């Protein structure tokens, strides 16, 4: 195969669409439109239109989220690992894998927004995010991954851009399209200097994207794993999800390869050998996933903790959940393993069947991870022994189908705009010395803009990344509204005269006096203006709820009775202490207590509102901030390095 042939074959995917293609896109658009209608209904009536309720509060949307994020892994991880290990056979696979990553991530991230009760408050995640929340780890990690995989996809496409520009010009396509390709090419040409810069950028991206990809699915698992729920609160959840992601992702790549091979007649490029090699990887991952599944459920079963046992009864039991679980185990795991295990069976059809089964199966498995755990409630939801019901509503099903359609649609459109197989890498693979005839670079007139665009994008993303960190590192001002009221400065003056007690003729007065240097609470009982002797008066002081007795005594001849003022007893937040006195006997005089508020009393010191750095407080522990900050810095510095290479590449093109 010569470079010219390869070029012609691979650019064929960009030829005008056939009727069949148009029908395909049209039907995908129809499904997307239906999903949009369903989503509008959900926005109008709330999540009530779903079947999620307070017990099963996450359902199909979260399943889709985990599923699509899982698919996205394939992509980049497989492509990056194969690139780093310099596996020659990777070449026809990488472009497709990288495109899957970007598209699946976009769809997956949007599923979370659809699941939110208040998508209009999405910005709160930036304005007031808490770094302790696994959801924020997801936000930061998915954003980083999305930016990285965009960059990775783009860097690996640069050498194809001049070819695409030439092709578009030759076919008389719109000058805008030609210009679009030219701008994206950064003036790349076949020269050792260009190659070196590109290799450097690509190498760095391939290395850094691997840990980023691993981190993403780990933190996706932690949204579940950090709760105390049975089946989620598991130490192997991170690696279990990562393996599951690569597993389903690899299956997705194989499926895509088969479909594109047939649709675009790429049989000369996507050879059976490629499928065999990917099939072996898929087999290894299937076994690994089976192993992880066994570890996960065996420990839970053997331990036999109440909630764990109930979850396993549900999963392995006779109900619909149990049926789904066993169907998954057989058709999503054992059958594919069987299909992939024996070399004699390893035909394209068998590999394709295994991949499709795994794809469907892994969606079911994610559903089985999320829903049955929520059905195994901590506090019983229904009559004893019955688990709360959940079955996706029509709206949820429509939106899910729409998500799948959107994924296929974006993928199709991508393949109409860019070659789905990397031309330059395929040429390289063919070992052909004839390089693709690259036309003289048309350096765009608006050079500055072209140069600044990627730099500005990355700078913005960087700023965004830093911004998400800011709110927790800066100590927030105290609760403005929670500052205690200033203590009253009023002196301890004799208290107000008492209200008349029943019967009207009886009067009870309560005052605070100083006798022989000792503060006392003095009550005076009078009847028709005459002091009453021998009446029992009870003194008390108000506490938050109810009262605390201070003592009781009988009145003297002058109608007075006194108890010691309760020194050291704190008042309320304003420094007020409410004391009361009531006549207990004779019953004929008894009535409602008389209350007096004394200001300027010592009160519990106004403690500053404690904002400890804890998982439940508003500020994250330094270890969390430090770890996340350091990881982000490493990743984004590498992205920056890649952008610097691209800038150098652009300058190089300009000089020549």
């Amino acid at each position, binding site marked *: 195969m010569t470079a010219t042939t390869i070029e012609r074959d691979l650019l064929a995917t960009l030829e005008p669409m056939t009727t069949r293609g148009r029908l395909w896109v049209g039907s995908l658009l129809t499904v997307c439109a239906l999903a949009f209608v369903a989503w509008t209904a959900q926005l109008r009536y709330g999540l009530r239109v779903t079947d999620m309720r307070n017990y099963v509060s*996450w359902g199909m949307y979260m399943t889709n989220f985990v599923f699509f994020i899982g698919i996205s892994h394939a992509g980049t991880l497989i492509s990056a690992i194969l690139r780093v290990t310099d596996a020659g056979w990777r070449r026809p696979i990488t472009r497709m894998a990288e495109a899957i990553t970007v598209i699946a991530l976009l769809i997956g991230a949007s599923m979370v927004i659809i699941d939110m009760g208040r998508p*209009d408050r999405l910005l709160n995640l930036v304005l007031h995010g808490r770094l302790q*929340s696994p959801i924020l780890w997801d936000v930061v990690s998915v954003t980083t991954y999305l930016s990285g995989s965009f960059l990775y996809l783009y860097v690996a496409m640069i050498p194809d851009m001049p070819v695409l520009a030439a092709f578009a010009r030759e076919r008389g396509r719109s000058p805008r399209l030609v210009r679009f390709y030219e701008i994206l090419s950064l003036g790349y040409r076949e020269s050792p200097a260009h190659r070196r810069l590109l290799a450097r950028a690509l190498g760095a991206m391939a290395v850094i994207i691997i840990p980023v990809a691993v981190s993403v699915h780990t933190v996706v698992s932690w949204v579940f794993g950090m709760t105390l729920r049975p089946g989620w609160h598991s130490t192997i959840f991170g690696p279990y999800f990562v393996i599951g992601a690569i597993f389903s992702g690899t299956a997705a790549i194989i499926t895509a390869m088969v479909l594109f091979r047939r649709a675009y007649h790429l049989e000369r490029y996507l050879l059976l050998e490629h499928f065999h090699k990917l099939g072996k990887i898929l087999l290894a991952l299937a076994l690994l996933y089976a192993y992880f599944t066994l570890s996960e459920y065996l420990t839970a079963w053997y331990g036999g903790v109440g909630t764990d046992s*109930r979850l396993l009864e549900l999963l392995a039991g006779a109900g619909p959940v149990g049926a789904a679980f066993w169907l998954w185990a057989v058709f999503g795991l054992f059958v594919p393993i069987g299909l992939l295990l024996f070399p004699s069976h390893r035909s394209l059809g068998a590999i394709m069947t295994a991949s499709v089964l795994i794809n469907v199966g892994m969606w079911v498995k994610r559903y089985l991870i999320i829903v049955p755990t929520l059905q195994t409630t*901590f506090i019983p939801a229904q009559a004893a022994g019955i688990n709360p019901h959940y079955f996706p509503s029509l709206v949820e099903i429509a939106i899910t189908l729409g998500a799948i359609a959107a994924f296929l649609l974006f993928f199709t459109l991508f393949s109409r705009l860019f070659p789905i197989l990397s031309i330059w890498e395929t040429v390289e693979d063919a070992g052909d010395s004839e390089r693709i005839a690259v036309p003289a670079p048309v350096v765009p007139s608006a050079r500055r803009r072209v140069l600044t665009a990627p730099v500005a994008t990355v700078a913005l993303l960087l700023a965004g990344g830093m911004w998400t960190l800011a709110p927790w590192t800066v100590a927030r001002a105290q609760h403005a509204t929670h500052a205690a009221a200033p203590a009253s400065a009023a002196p301890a003056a004799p208290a107000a005269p008492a209200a008349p007690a029943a019967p009207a003729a009886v009067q009870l007065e309560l005052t605070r006096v100083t006798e022989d240097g000792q503060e006392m609470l003095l009550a005076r009982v009078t009847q028709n203006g005459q002091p009453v002797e021998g009446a029992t008066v009870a003194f008390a002081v108000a506490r938050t709820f*109810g009262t605390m007795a201070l003592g009781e005594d009988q009145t003297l001849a002058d109608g007075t009775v006194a108890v010691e003022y309760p020194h050291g007893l704190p008042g309320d937040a304003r420094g007020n202490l409410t004391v009361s006195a009531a006549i207990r006997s004779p019953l004929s005089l008894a009535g409602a207590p008389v209350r007096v508020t004394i200001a300027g009393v010592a009160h519990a010191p106004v403690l500053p509102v404690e904002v400890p750095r804890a998982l439940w407080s508003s500020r994250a522990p330094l270890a969390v901030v430090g770890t996340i900050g350091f990881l982000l810095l490493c990743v984004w510095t590498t992205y920056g390095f890649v952008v610097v290479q691209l800038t150098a590449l652009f300058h190089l093109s300009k000089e020549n």
Partner: protein
Amino acid sequence: MRELPTLPMPAPEPPAEGYTRREALVMGLFALAAAATTTGCAADKLALDDFVAKHFKDLSPAELQDRLAQMEKRYTESYGKPVKVSATPAQEGVLFGYALDLSRCIGCRKCVYGCVEENNQSRDPQTHWITVLEMDKEGGVNLQNANAFYDHETVPAPGKFYMPVACQQCENPPCVKVCPVEATWREPDGIVVIDYDWCIGCRNCIAGCPYGARRFNWGTPGIPKDEFNPVTEYLGNRPRQRGVVEKCTFCIQRVRQGLYPKCVEVCPVGARKFGNLLDPESEIRYIIENKRVYILKEELNTQPKFFYYYGL
């Protein structure tokens, strides 16, 4: 602009006359965006105010007053009676605690409905903050075999005992830990509150709560005007919007004014006790120090401020 005949971007419908396909597409997208915005906002005319509203803790005292006045106006209009919205701060030296006598509770669910009325919970769809569990006396406290949906002519049913469960106001709350936007937090007096104007409705707190105490507003809460309780608190019983989480706040609008929570008040058998845990003379302290106390899921180290005890 020249049409792009070769770009593989078929429009779902033939482009309107006079527009190119791209223009039609862009216009379509704008129309969709507009539709989405209006459907989201139609339910609430003051959506824009809410949209730009600040986090409760970030409000200055003046801003808070404005916000409260705005809310009072809005709720007064919606419910046809003067509504008071306060933001009473926590008092120093107070840590609220709740005790429930398992040997007295008869499972009459008066607390459930008292709570619904006091705290303006949605009647349609029904939202209850308190779940009363029925268990066999023989089995003891065994939540696995509890029944939340018992339906007897009279209670208590023979051989059964009852355990009402609501928010346990944990000192180490798993729900607060996982909140991504600090829409829920623990107040200095121990009450875990929610800012309904800040919650994004991700429901991670519902997944995180081991007591199943949090409720989500799946639809727009419906409260009959004449049953609306007009004495409300910002972080408590003011009307909630669709798509946010709510839960028991120990009747924050009452206890911060020195009143008992509604469930304490309506309990016909005196099974519910409430008080200040920092007050050594309080009834709640007496109960904790002298009675057999049971803490729900104590092993989870959530450190609830809700204590079950056996009074008899």
